[in-house]
Every structure is written in structure tokens, then in C-alpha cells.
């Protein structure tokens, strides 16, 4: 399944409190994602909480967008990405 990086902007800042409510709202997102076969791997959040870079597995960009809409999350850009690990980098053969 392809992996995507989704860039989001939250003008008033993202708020996911470190409480039970925060955890629950994350799980609600995960549940809605599942309906479209989308998996949220994890996200990087800027210090000012205005931008997030989220790593997702999903069947296609449309599914990523649909679950974003179902979850009320903004979408700026979606890029198809691969992992590059500098310490385990293997040169392609041939």
C-alpha cells in the first residue's frame, strides 16, 4: 500500500490535549480512517502547532482526502513518499 505525507495548516493551532479526551479524539480519527482502508502512522507537529506533517498508508490520495473531510481536517498537500534510512541504505542492484 502506498505511503503518503499529508501537509496540513491549522491557522489557530492544532489542539490535541494530553488528556483522555485527546486520546479519544485520536482514536475517533483512526476509526473513521479504517472505513476507507487508511492508516495513520504518525505526525510531526511544528512548535507553534500551526502545521502538521502526517504519515499515512492508504489506497490512493482520494481516500486520504475523504477521511480528512470526514474528520474535519485540512489538507494542503499530499505527496507520495518512501522511507530512506541513512544507516541502512542499500544501493539498488544492477
Amino acid at each position: 500500500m502506498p505511503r503518503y505525507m499529508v501537509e496540513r495548516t491549522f491557522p489557530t493551532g492544532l489542539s490535541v490535549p494530553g488528556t483522555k479526551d485527546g486520546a479519544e479524539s485520536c482514536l475517533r480519527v483512526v476509526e473513521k480512517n479504517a472505513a476507507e482502508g487508511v492508516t495513520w502512522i504518525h505526525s510531526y507537529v511544528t512548535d507553534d502547532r500551526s502545521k502538521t506533517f502526517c504519515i499515512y498508508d492508504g489506497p490512493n490520495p482520494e481516500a486520504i482526502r475523504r477521511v480528512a473531510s470526514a474528520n474535519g481536517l485540512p489538507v494542503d498537500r499530499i505527496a507520495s513518499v518512501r522511507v530512506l534510512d541513512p544507516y541502512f541504505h542499500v544501493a539498488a542492484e544492477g
Partner: protein
Amino acid sequence: MPQLELLERASELAALTAALDDAAQGRGAIALVSGEAGIGKTALVTHFARRVADRVRTLWGACDPLLTPRPLGPLHDIARVSSPRLLAALGGSGGREAIFTAALDELQRGRGATLCVIEDAHWADEATLDLLRFLGRRIANAPALIVVTYRDDEMGATHPLRAALGQLPGSALRRVRPAALSPVAVSRLARDAGQPATGLHEITGGNPFFVTEALAAGDGDVPPTVRDAVLARTARLSLDAQCITELASVVPMRTEGWLIEALLAPPTAALDECVSAGMVRDAEGALRFRHELARRAVEESLAPERRRQLHARCLDTLRRVGAADPARADVARLVHHAEGARDTVALRELAPLAAEQAAAAGAHREAVKHFARALRHTLALLPTERARLLERHAYECYLTDQMPEAIAARQEALRLWQTSGNEERAGETLRWLSRLHWFIGQRADAERYGREAVDVLERVPRGSALAMAYSNVAQLAMLADDVEGALLWGNRAIAIAEPLGDAATLSHALNNVGTAECVYERPGGYERLERALVIAQEHQLHEHIARAYTNLASTTILSRKLEAARRWLDEGIAFSTEHDLDSWVLYMRAWRAHLRFQTGEWDSAVDDACAVADNPRASVVSRIPALAVLARVRRHREHPGWEALLDETRALAIGADELQRREAAACARAEAAWLSGNGERTGDESAWAYPPDMEEVTPWRRAELTLWLWRAGRVAGPLDGVPHVVGLSLAGDWRAAAAEWKNIGSVVDQAHALADADEEDGLRQSLALFERIGSLAGATMVRRKLASMGARGVPRGSRPSTRAHPLGLTTRQQQILGLICDGLSNAEIAARLNVSEKTVDHHVSAVLGKLEVRSRAKAVAKAVALGLR
């Protein structure tokens, strides 16, 4: 055998109970219970049904593992046991619609809720899958829960059940997947059976059926496979009882008491012995294995000759019994035993009967299998008999999308008709070969066969066959935008069909002629197309009705009458959905995706396009526009993967070899290149789709392509034979061009026209439009141009429209909500936005739906409360 306690199924039972509670409130659903063989699907559903027996009516049907299953097998089960009315419909002459409607009525009968179980749907015949689709689309408002069990471990990606489930509305589905038992549960079962649990969980993987069989076989050692466990159990039976299990193992359904009696006349004790060894006896005295795994284990242990003899004896008895009471000897069942007995003579007689029965029920895949079986055994038949069988086979193959097989059968039939000198049949067969070759995207062959059909049929007395051959040639001409050809051949067809009162051919021919005329905007074309629709409606010709809607929509889209197109599409899709004409629904949804792309309603455009692209049965002509729209939206939004989609679209369009398909692919590719700022590539991508003699192309068909060629500097204005709005752009009047596109309703074209401006004013308007519809790529392109002109103060782009609305409202819906809050009526909103009132109605109800309110006043209150205003 004592009923084992149901372990570790609390959450599954709770899910089923919740679905049933909803159903009792009138919100029905389909619960899909899936898992590997032996995981306990039937046990779960049986337990559930018993628990709710006092408050629901239960209907029970099962699909069977015959070589070729009985058409509508589960429905026959239900009717036989619970519903005389349904039985009457099944035996009646009302056809599929009457049967399906009766089934739906059955679910809505009585005061309380109904629980309907359909077991083993992985074996379902095609008609049963159609029934599921039919019920699934209507279940949401019925007081019924349909529980469908199936083995998902044996279903490949192209399994028909998978496609059928994919076409059910997701909101109507509940999924239940019983898991393997935990080690704790397995040891508890072992303890209850008084046996050691050592190795039991590891070997059985917690599969409840395997665990049960292993414990029942129980001599301490765990048998290595289910098969070993089952056989160890049957080996301990008496000889009489073993004979019964062997007989039952070749009958892949219930083995009736009278069948056992007629074949074996066993002592009662032997029957009881079978039951105590794990077989099940139902209310009517029939025996069956508790699980298909067990049946198969016993069947596979039989020596081939022994198996053949058992099949032969079953066939013999069933035929004798069937002569007196046909209901007892289903022909699909007879075929199964005839095949098992390798009885060629019986197969030659029975297989065609089974095929016709399956076809009449709409089980076309099963009909194909029976016809193929019949054809294997009828090489020695009279040529004309074989040819007729081949034609029937070919038609069923065509209905099930097996085009190469259909073509092969028609070609053999053609040779037989030619040898026997039957020119009329040969001509009809040639016409079919033409149609089939068009379907697989081979136009040259389609044209050749089409003309041959006409040549042959002109030599015999004129009739419907010739009219249809003419209309087929007219259709090929129309599809290639050849208006003269369409008129010539279409009018010949009309001249024959009209006096004959052949409504189907008349509607077909009027459609071809009218469509071709509309493409060239000739007077009378639209009226002819509408007449094709009316005739089809008067005679209830469903396919022809759908085809008329389709061409009314595609021609109005072509000439950019977008509101009219929207109306035809909505009506056509509603009609085709209601009548389960799935391929027409897909084709029209592909067109609607194109329309919604132009109007900037991209979320709904993507919904339509994905519905087509994700459906493996969508035809090439549906896939092309759908993939083009998906690619274009991805390109605009700067989502990945558009390049691959564009390549696929072009490959399909080249194969289909019709300008209208090439145009869809070329415009998508040209636009993508243009958005990247690559003018050279834009020109190349537009040029490949064009025929060398492009002056002869109808004005609207070359509208968008001409604009890309002009933007790329490949053509210069003024040009003859282009629509007015294109002429405006070519003359450099971007302002007037943009205004006209706005009137037409095509936001994308409007934004591109504004981007052609060479002054800041137009470019800023273009930027605003691209941002409104969520086109990152369009906005970037215009910003680049503004920057190169030295424009200052260009907004960095907050991209408000790409931000999902908290309630999931689209840009248009947000705009409408704003106007509702301002107190405007629908008529006023329609006037303000320059769209029809009907469109506004549609948007307003969508807005109310998403806000989950029923009135405008509540919508305003909620919008204010949520801070949206």
C-alpha cells in the same frame, strides 16, 4: 452430539443484536459475517437466531456447492419453508423484478422485524448476488436484518461476491468477523470433553470446527488435519452408517430422507448413529454434514469409481422421483450428479435445460457454465442445433462480460449457419460479431462485420434483422462523430422498423440518428433523441431508456448546456439504479464526473470517478472519462499519482480509437502540461488526439483541444468552425470569453480563460477562482505569471477552499449556507448564483443533511452556534 457452548463470541453477538435493534426501528442493514472455513460463522448465526427467536420472524436460505449452483437457491429454500407467496412468485411468469419485489415484501411483512440469513454466499449464483444488490440498496428503510455468511479465505480479488459487496451502500453494511479461539477457550473445551489440551491450540490454530472434530475423534493424539479428524470419526461407524455418510457426501446439500430410503433403505439405528456422530437432521428429516469441511473430507476419501456409482444412483433415483414430482429434482442438481456420473447422454439433455433455467432467473454466469457443459457433449448434434446452442452461450457470455468466449462462440455459429445456408441467421451473427468487436475496442473489425451483416441480410426478405443491422452501422458511425453515415444507415433502419412496429429497433435507430445530429447541432436532433426516449418508455425497454438518457446527457455536455446535462444525468442515473442497469449507471456516473469537474464540484466529481475506476466491471468507455477526471483533479490539487493515471487513460483511448475518447485523454494531458508551464508539451499532447482533417470535426468536439493548441502557439486565430466562446479567446478577448464560460457554468474553463489575460486584473480574478475550487497547481501557475509581470502584493495563498470545512461542506455548500443565513429564498439564491432553482434545492437539502437539521431556521441557528457565521 451435545451442543458446544459458544465461546468468545460476545462482541459479535452484541453487534448483531444492535443491528437487529436498529432494524426493528425501521433502519435495516446487511450484516456480513465472514471468516475462514470452520471459524464458526454458522454456529454464531444459529446461536443468534435462537436467542432472538421470540421477537423476530426468521427466514433461512443457503447457497450450495454444486458444480454450478442452483439459480436463486437460497430464495427457493426460504420460499419452500416459510413463504407460499414467494414460492408463487418464483414459479410465476413475472420475471426477476416480480421475484425480487416479492422478496423485498417478504422482508417487510408482519409487525415485528425480520431476520433473513443467507449462508455461504461465496458459492452464490449470479442471480442471488443480484438479489443481494437489489435488497442492499433498499434495506435501509426496511424493518429487516439480512445476515450474509461467507468464507473470505477462498475469495480472490476477482470473486463475484467481492464485486457485489463493493456495490452495496457502505452505510447499510455491518461487518462481523469471528476470530479464532484463544488458547484459554481451547483448553476449556478440552477440559469439558475430558481430554488433554496439549498441542490442541497449536495444531488447530483455534479453528472451532477443527477443535470440535479433534476432540470428537479423541483418542488423545490430536489429528494433524481437519480431514484426519473427520475420517477418524467416521471410521468408527457401523457399515450401514458409513454407507449413509458416503451417500450424503456426494449430495452437496441436504440429503432427503426419501432419497436415503430409496437408495439404501437403512435401519433406523444407522440413521441415529450418524446423527450422534455429528451429522445434523433437520425438521423435514433430511440429513446433512454439520460442516462442508466434513462432507468434503468424506467425499474425497471415496475411490473414484465408488464416487461415480453413487452419483449415477442418485441421478437415477432423482430422475425417477422427479418424473412424478418435479419440485424434488432440481435440474441443476441433476446436472451435478450427471457430471459426477460422467453420463454424457444425460448431460446432453439436462445441461441446456439447466442453462435456460439459470438464464431465466438472471443467473447468467451459471447459464454460461451449463451451456459450455452442453457444448462439450454435443459435438455430434445437427449443425443447426449446435449453432442455436452456441448463440445462446454467446449471449450469456456477452451478458457476463466474457467477450472473447462470446466472440469464439459466434464465430463457430457463423460457420455453421453459412454451411447450412441460413443467411438470415448468418447475417444476425455477423451483426453480433460487429457489436462484440466494438466492445473489446477493435473498431476496424466491428466496421467490417457490420458491413458484412448488411450485405448478407439485404439478400433475404427485409425484416427486423436487416433494420437492426442498419442501425448497428449507424451506431458505429455516430460513435465516431460521422453524422452523414449515422443519418444514411439510421434512416434506412427507421424506414423498416417503423412500419413493422419494431419499437426496440426504432428507438435504437432514432437514438443513433438523433445523437449524431445533436453532436453537429443540427435542427431536429434533440427532438429525435427525446422521441427515442419516449418510445422506449412507452414499451418499457429498459436498456433503450438508459441509452437514450446517456446520449441526451453526453450531447448536452458536449455542447456545454450543463444544466440540461445535469438534469438528464440525475434522471438517467436514478432510473438505471432503480432497474439495476449497473453498466449504464457507471457510464453515466463517468459523464457526471466530467460535468462536476467542469463546474468545480470536485469532491463529488471524485466520488463519481472513483465509483467507476474502482469497479472492475466498468467498461473501457466508462473508465476513460473517469480516469481523466481523477487525473485532472489530482494534478490541480497537486496530489501524487496523476502521471500514471494520465498514461493509463491515453492507452485506453488509443485502443478505443474514437475521437470522443481521445479528446477526453488529450485534454487531460494537455492541461496537466500547461499547469506545469510546459507549452511545448501542451501542444504535443493536444496534437496526437487530432485527426489530420480537423476542419471536419464538429465545433464543440474541438473546442477545448483548440484552446490548448492555441495556448501552446500551434494555431492562431481567427479559425473557422470553432464555438463562439473559443473564438473570443483566440481573438484575445479573454474578458468576454471568461464571462461566457461563467454563463455556461464551467468554472475551470473560466479560470483558464482569465489566466490567458496579459494584465493583472484578469490574472488576479483567475487566481481567486483557482483558489476557490482548490486548484493549487492553477494558483501556482497564475502566481508565476503575475510574478513575471512584476506584480506586487500577490497574496501568498491561504487556500481557504482546500481546507476541509468542519462539517464537510463543499465550497458551494458553504456559499449557499451563507446565503441562507442572509435570508435569501431558493429562487433568490438561484438568481444570485446564476443556476437553476432545482440545483439550489439540491444544494440546500445537502446542506441541511450535513448540518443534521430539518429546516432553514435550524440551519441558521446551528451555523451561528458553531461560529460558522
